[in-house]
């Protein structure tokens, strides 16, 4: 890192006063019937029955190439939301996010279907992440082997709903981790499964991190943040409370959370 710092530091992600607001329908007086919907459209009073949740409030920072940045904060402080905004998946209410290339979130859960076989889900998940059919064919065996689904018999040809939750999580992670990324974002809850698989997935995350230019890691484990990140952003109630070197921020954070 030292020679990079002496050299020019190249920014890869710039967040400029980002605000994100969720609109929740039906949280106030929600009548979801067709007639209520009609009257709402006719009256053009779109705000009725809508509650706003201001999840991220004016966050700004600059991330540079080669940095591994941890995001910490209590539950509901806006960490995952901020990650999605950086990835361009959740449009900000105001403010801008500039990125170099296409940041991607490590995760493919939403594209998979429980009623399909593991086999088809590998293909579907790969395609959803933007891999080509050839790339998937090439990596198919690797993905299945990594997941360890077939260690106890031919499970990959069974529908995913028949898997135990641990097995489902393993397959999901294996598919998601099959692709290389430019700017990579990891939500730590991903690495699940039994102890053996956790070790294997942590090793794979380290590998992915090496290949990626900039890494964001959301985690509640101060240990894994300390192990992997050189800089930490601390979010609390959607605001950036602290931004600095890992040790400094973690010390304050531990004081704050009373550990």
């Amino acid at each position, binding site marked *: *890192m030292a020679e990079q*710092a002496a050299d*020019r*530091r*190249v*920014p890869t*992600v*710039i*967040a*400029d006063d980002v605000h994100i*607001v*969720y*609109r929740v*329908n039906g949280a106030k007086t929600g009548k*979801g*019937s*067709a007639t209520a*919907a*009609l009257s709402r*459209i006719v009256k053009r009073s*779109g705000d009725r029955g809508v509650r706003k*949740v201001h*999840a991220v409030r004016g966050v*700004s920072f*600059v991330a540079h190439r080669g940095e591994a940045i941890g995001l910490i904060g209590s539950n509901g402080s806006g960490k995952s939301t901020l990650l999605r*905004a*950086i*990835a*361009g*998946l*959740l*449009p900000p*209410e105001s403010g*801008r*996010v*500039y*990125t*170099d290339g*296409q940041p*991607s*979130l490590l995760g*493919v*859960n*939403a*594209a998979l*279907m429980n*009623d*399909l076989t593991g086999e*088809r889900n590998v*293909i*579907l998940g790969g*395609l*959803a992440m*933007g891999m*080509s*059919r050839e790339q998937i064919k090439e990596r198919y065996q690797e993905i299945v082997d990594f997941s360890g689904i077939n260690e106890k018999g031919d499970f990959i040809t069974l*529908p995913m709903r028949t898997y135990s939750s641990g097995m489902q999580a393993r397959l999901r992670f294996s598919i998601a981790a099959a692709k290389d990324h430019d700017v990579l974002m990891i939500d730590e809850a991903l690495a699940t499964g039994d102890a053996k698989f956790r070790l294997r997935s942590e090793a794979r995350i380290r590998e992915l991190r090496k290949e990626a230019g900039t890494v964001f890691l959301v985690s509640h484990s101060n240990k894994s943040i300390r192990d992997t990140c*050189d*800089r930490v952003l601390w979010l609390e109630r959607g605001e950036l409370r602290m931004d*600095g070197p890992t040790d400094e921020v973690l010390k304050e954070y531990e004081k704050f959370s009373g550990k």
Partner: protein
Amino acid sequence: MSAPTSPDEGLTAAQLAAKYGLAVSGARPSLPDYVRQLWGRRHFILAFSSAKLTAQYSQAKLGQLWQVATPLLNAAVYFAIFGLILDAGRGMDKDVYIPFLVTGVFVFTFTQSSVMSGVRAISGNLGLVRALHFPRASLPVSFALQQLQQLLYSMIVLFAVAIAFGSYPDASWVLIVPVLVLQFCFNTGLALIFARAGAKTPDLAQLMPFVMRTWMYASGVMFSIPVFLADKPQWIANVLQWNPAAIYMDLMRFALIEEYGSQNLPDHVWAVAGGWAVLFAIGGFVYFWKAEERYGRG
């Protein structure tokens, strides 16, 4: 470490981004770029639609047999009610009326279910939209494609019904292909329009069934428009017959049913069918693309 180095100090975020060539994350691509991206995702679109179709019946004991059994049962119910009990054919020969009715039901269902799945294409898949990058039009297009595959299964039943009532395969059956292509373009455009509307107002999912039912009754699914409106001014029948649902139903009947001749079709029928398809496919696509960067907003 975290303090910016001197040459970049004092630059605003936008200037800094411009200096290093960073782009706004999640910005809307230009229309040609968007088309290219969508084409690049064609395998995903195809895989997603057939996966949805397969997943539908995967828990049933008869499995994929339901793809054909469902339309067959549908046809049987309509036959019993409108053919046997109500006799809605109004003088139409049974050999014509039964295939006429079944064709109408299947063809209209194709448009109806494309609209209904279009409404929920974005709003019902927010998890997917907020997790992965892909041109969002992939979703409505893929849902329209799923409905097309569904219709192809229904066509098996339709062919059986037509043959059972004395309309045997002949040269005019070839016309089925262009009719399906045109209707698919129209449906896709409609699905794109409703996907954008449904993303902003998910309540449309509650409202649309009523709109679609009204449209169904106005399009002559169970009756022949010219026969029913014989004593009304000609322009009313014309307007009803030129509506896209009626156009595609009539063309399909014309192609399929031996005794349903061109005298039942409105003027300029092919031009109107093509016009609706092009207008909605292009218009719907552009309309959907215009809001590309906003899909997935909380």
